[in-house]
């Protein structure tokens, strides 16, 4: 089963390597990992997408919680949640037909073209992993020059929050 684990940790050097090291040392899978400081710059928020049996996910959350730098943690896939990933994709766009086709597909997927040259477009697209996958599927593979994906960011719906002042 795929799980999204959100955690708040001290924004200190080496904190990321403690998390990454834990996953490799214990043989857990990481599908994606994103990290950035929060509104409080002394804290970082990390989103880890992982998969495994219920037992393994339980161990992962316990082991992460055990890290001295980790302040708070939640498996947001346990409840209603929203997840988004950002993708930047550079595609070849040389002739008129190619350019209009790319524009049309970008519109359908509610993306934006954010860089244009004589021969290329850079398209920005946000959504679930499935949506980004679908966009890649939809365009001709030969036209893709480069894709950059941010990894998943996730947040619980409603009143639930991982902030330090709430439960």
């Amino acid at each position, binding site marked *: 089963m795929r799980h999204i684990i959100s955690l708040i940790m001290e924004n200190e*050097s080496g904190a990321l390597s403690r998390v990454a*090291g834990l996953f490799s040392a214990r043989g857990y899978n990481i599908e994606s990992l994103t990290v950035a400081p929060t509104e409080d710059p002394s804290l970082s928020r990390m989103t880890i997408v992982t998969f495994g049996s219920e*037992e393994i996910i339980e*161990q992962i959350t*316990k082991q992460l919680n*055990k890290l*001295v730098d*980790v302040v708070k943690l939640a498996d947001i896939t346990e409840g209603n949640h929203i997840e988004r990933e950002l993708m930047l994709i550079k595609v070849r766009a040389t002739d008129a037909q190619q350019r209009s086709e790319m524009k049309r597909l970008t519109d359908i997927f509610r993306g934006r073209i954010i860089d244009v040259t004589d021969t290329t477009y850079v398209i920005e697209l946000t959504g679930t992993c499935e949506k980004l996958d679908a966009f890649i599927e939809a365009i001709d593979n030969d036209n893709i020059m480069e894709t950059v994906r941010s990894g998943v960011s996730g947040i619980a719906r409603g009143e639930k929050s991982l902030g330090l002042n709430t439960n």
Partner: protein
Amino acid sequence: MELNGADIVVQFLKDEGVEYVFGYPGGAVLHIYDALFKQEDVKHILVRHEQGATHAADGYARATGKPGVVLVTSGPGATNAITGIATAYMDSIPMVIITGQVVTAYIGSDAFQEVDSVGISRPCVKHNFLVKEASQLASTLKKAFYIASTGRPGPVVVDIPKDITDPSIKVPYEYPKDVSMRSYNPTVKGHPGQVKRAAELILSAKRPMIYSGGGVILSGADKELIDFTQKLGYPITNTLMGLGGYPGTDKQFVGMLGMHGTYEANMAMHDCDVLIAVGARFDDRVTGDVKHFCPHAKIIHIDIDPSSISKNVRVDIPIVGDVKQVLSDLIGEIKSSKTKVDKDALGKWWQQIDEWRGKDCLRYNRDSELIKPQYVIEKLYEITGGDAYVTSDVGQHQMWAAQFYKFKSPYHWINSGGLGTMGFGLPSAIGAKLAHPDADVACVTGEASIQMCIQELSTAMQYMTPVKILSLNNRYMGMVRQWQEFFYESRYSHSYMEALPDFVKLAESYGHVGMRIEKPGDVEGAIREAFAMKDRLVFLDFITDKTENVYPMIAAGKAHNQMHLSSERDLA
């Protein structure tokens, strides 16, 4: 008061109440060594190899319950310390290891004696720090001691670049009395609902079993455990790390469990209907095949580390908390509960256990003309009255010490259970002897293990730590030989110790006393003589039966009821 970084380190250690620092100087820690030189409160023990420093500090910690402190230089000083750090980590021993680091500006430049100590130690520490400002030294060290000694204890590394301890840079110093960390708050008190449920299950048991581990010793919960066990009248087994947590001489004690545990302990585990795991972590050497582990039992697990719960074996009632606190809460619940112990069922259960005991599973040939290693341990136990601090190395001798020395109280059995580090015995004995200068300290070892930290004989001479070394010399890496006999058709691949030194002369060359004992009849006299020499380290080289194996034995991955009792008495 304003102090430089080096003086802050030493002043802090003094304010923290640190008695001994085990270490070895080198470039990156020279400022700190200079600060040590100027005072006499914090005593420094110069080892002969950094691995010895960590084991000695570890032995001190295990013998006292207080954190052991290590000071080593950067690069090779830090890497040599890693084995000892990992040893402490696996057994949850509180330690603070101060490693020197190259000056901040050189970090990452492959400078002389530079190694990423924080990176290298990360997988085998509870936590580690790189100090970036002299003004953060005191608070960082305070956090290190706090983290090392609270919750599930463990080693903490504090890496200090040389410029941080520069004598010319002074910063204000005040001993930080308190520490609070928003990200680190171990749970101490067990959930009352869980405690209540556990008490009811415990009282409803027909065939109960208490299985206690090193957590009892780390938590100082031996009195509560004795009270709990004796109030109920239930049988109790200890893990290798838990020995001494319950008196080994008591009739309710059924011996150690696991791979080389007693027949009665393992059979009782297999047949019990309620298992009460107290500060134990279901290690593979204890459980054997987890699929067939306690197949009939409901399991209660008390542990301070939530990640230990349901890691290897699913449990029915987990209680996260400090064992001492939870046991005393449980005792309260049991006293006030309307449910009472089922005396009839318990009587029948004890009948069955006594029948298993009747097998006398630790029996060995007492008529041999060769010295039997078990006999040496029995005599050690008799002569020291069960009061000695006993350290061990790793292998057959470790198992015999665990089986035949009946530990009466905690902190007395000091061995590397989790990591299984050869070379642990002698330096940890030095640490234990420094902690308890008036007590008998014995290091049970073998001719293979002792050579892994033999250089510490020199440390023992310098600081007059008269421990007694009992080497069960069978001219083999005994446990390796045993596995090769059982599982590799007696192909003894590189397990034979050729070109052994003359240990008597070796001991003498360090200024100690050496004795070689070759006949069973001389064993007792030699041990008595050694312990009578209160101020001398004595190296007893027992030439033992080289074919002796450790029994009972459960092969790796087998169930508790599949035990070999001896070469003649096969599957139970």
